[in-house]
């Protein structure tokens, strides 16, 4: 496979996760890793959706709660499958707290861009036709 194709495939794959019952996805090129532990250090004086910071290999990075960021109410309690998706957008590294990481999906021939200024850059569909919202990491971090 040519390098260009690999690059395209990378761009065209997204990792799906669940938050607030809905399905969302990050493009795989912004995703650095998924951390399964979920404890963090709270930091006062930050916007509500930045719930704290974690230590990622010696760097202190912010933790953004996706539910709060998207304007949903705060969860009573996160389940045991809750995890942190570490993303990197324009050299800002942040962890995004979600309910559960699910699977990945190819966006090739399966992506409807939304042209409004939303955090959701477009819509794709899963194997069983379920709707998945693809998140624009850059806009997500602009708080």
């Amino acid at each position: 496979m040519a390098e260009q194709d690999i690059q395209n495939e990378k761009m065209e794959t997204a990792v799906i996760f669940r938050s607030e019952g809905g399905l969302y996805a990050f493009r795989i090129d912004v995703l650095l890793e998924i951390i399964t532990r979920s404890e963090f250090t709270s930091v006062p004086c930050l916007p509500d959706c930045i719930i704290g910071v974690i230590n990622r290999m010696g760097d202190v990075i912010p933790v953004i709660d996706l539910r709060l960021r998207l304007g949903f109410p705060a969860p009573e309690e996160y389940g045991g499958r809750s995890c942190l998706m570490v993303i990197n957008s324009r050299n800002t590294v942040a962890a995004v707290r979600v309910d559960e990481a699910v699977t990945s999906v190819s966006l090739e021939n399966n992506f409807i861009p939304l042209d409004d200024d939303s955090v959701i850059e477009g819509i794709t569909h899963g194997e069983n036709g379920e709707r998945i919202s693809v998140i624009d990491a850059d806009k997500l971090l602009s708080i």
Partner: protein
Amino acid sequence: MPKYEAGMEAMLDMFVFETSELLEKLDEILMRTESDVLTPDDVGEIFRIMHTVKGSAAMMGLTNMSGLAHSLEDLFSLIREDPNISYDKPRLYELLYEGSDGLKYETENLGDDSVPLTDFSDLTARCRSFAAEMQGKSAEVQTAQKSGGTGGSDYYAPDDGEDVFAFRVSYESTCMMPDIRAMVLLNQVKAQCEVLMTDPADLDDDNAGDRISANGFIVKVKTDKPDTIEDHLNSGINVCDVLRLERKAAEAPKPEPVQAAPAPEQPAAPAPSAEEKKPAKKQEEKGGAMISVRIEKLDRLMRLVQELVISESGVLHSSDLAPYKTGMPNFEKSARELKKLTDELQDLVMSVRMVPISGAFNRMNRVMRDMNKTLGKGVELVTVGEDTEVDKSVADLLGDPLMHLVRNAVDHGIETPEVRAAAGKTEKPTVTLSAFYEGNDVLVTVTDNGAGMDPNVLLEKARQKGILTKPMGEYTDEECFALIMAAGFSTNTAVTQYSGRGVGMDVVKQNLEKVGGTLKVDSELGKGSTFTIRVPMSLSISSCMGIRLCGQEYALPITVLSEVFRPEADELIVTPDGKESVLRHGSGKVLKVIRLDDHFGLTGGKRDLTDGIMLVCSTPQGEAALFTDEIVEEMQIVIKPFSPYLSGFGLKERGLSGTSVLGDGSILLVMDAGEIMKGRV
């Protein structure tokens, strides 16, 4: 357009570093020997320093610097060869100082294209004529032997093909170190074609330079583009002529061409300086061999060690081990060993960054000497505690403040000899530099036995300048002295070369405050003044008090903390509008209480002031008592500022200065008492 030779960018840092270090060493020797005997060892050392500077400057294509260094080297080569040669020592030292300053200035400004190259030809000529005087000859500038000549030998072998060409590269007669030039040129040519042979074969040879000056530099190459190579050779620095050598008749006797030395794998250019440096280094450090390391590498090493400690703790305290908690004596033993090793490693990494403060102090000798020359006050510099070790970054940072303070002390503090005599002062005018530890801080003092300062004069002066902030009567002596650190304050009526522009002290103070340092002034009229700098020993490690607030731990730098206590009910004062204060019976002070949970908008903490702890903080803004739930323990931590993303949310302004990752990987937030108290005390 850089000033140095193209292709040498990569060497610039190294060149600047090495040359600065050598020149500093030179200054040190000069200072030591000026009023003392110049031993043969010192002469040799100076000779080597100049030789190395000459060589590396020539390599960089800096003919002005190498020329000057060459002329200075020549002086010492004469002294070295004939220890009994007579010369005018003060004049020699003037030349050396001037040369050292010139070279230093040039080195510092190499990277700055807006500063033109300095023409050292006048100074170089003076050195030459001084050398000539020493030799008892007329001051005639020697001219190098004309290069060129048609050299009889044939450089072609009979079996050389049509694509083999030999060139004779002649250098200008004024060219310094043609061997180095040739080596640089050779490396460039090597990149383009195969070099079969050169004459001289070994450019590292001591006589190579002379041979090139006399016969030119012969390069024999195998190429199908002889014109390109010829052009390239022509473009070399200081090359005045390139001649393509014709083949001689076949029956010509075979010459003895020296076979090309096996081509060095690496560019050979840096080699001479590295080799010449070794003996100099060896003399410098009798304790053992030294190497220089880039500070970024040490930073990375320190970071790695921290990571290692965190991982270690993760492994040793893994929850997977819980079921075996008691049955693992061997594991426990190994774990203890490992812990001991990592602790030692951590201490070592910290100590590697520590350097004695003597380097910063020694530079002041030079400042003092120059000022004594111009001001004629004959001030003696005394240093105490120069073995005191501080982090390298702290040592670098102290250079500028110390220079300001020493200049101020000599210029403003010490009186002229006449005034001193009139005042009946018999002791020698002295400026004392001293350094010592106090807790985690280093205190550096600059003390003079000069005129001292009159608080009333300072006050009056400040009034005239309009920088008073409260009625004159309310100023204590200490506050009066602090006025000299206010912007736009200078007491010397005449602006001198060294001070008097009134920008010094406030800049010094600000620069120190940026890194958590302070500057204090004390003075006694007629006896002298003392300036005390207090800086953290290391900028990377801070001593902090761990405190608990609303169920989470935070850290507060101990430098601002003056007292910690649990208040009694009768010490608390609440005004009708709800403002809370605490009265300290001991000092009689009434301190404003700032509840940290309210400040940070947290809930779940202790509300009754008698249940929690008061942290008394003194900052430049004033004093206040910060109220928290409890204190945990004192700790040594590495404080990192927040990432740019997080800083964007105004955390610093709210009183959080950064974070610290602890040994177990957890994060502590570090508070900044100054910001918390801002506008409230």
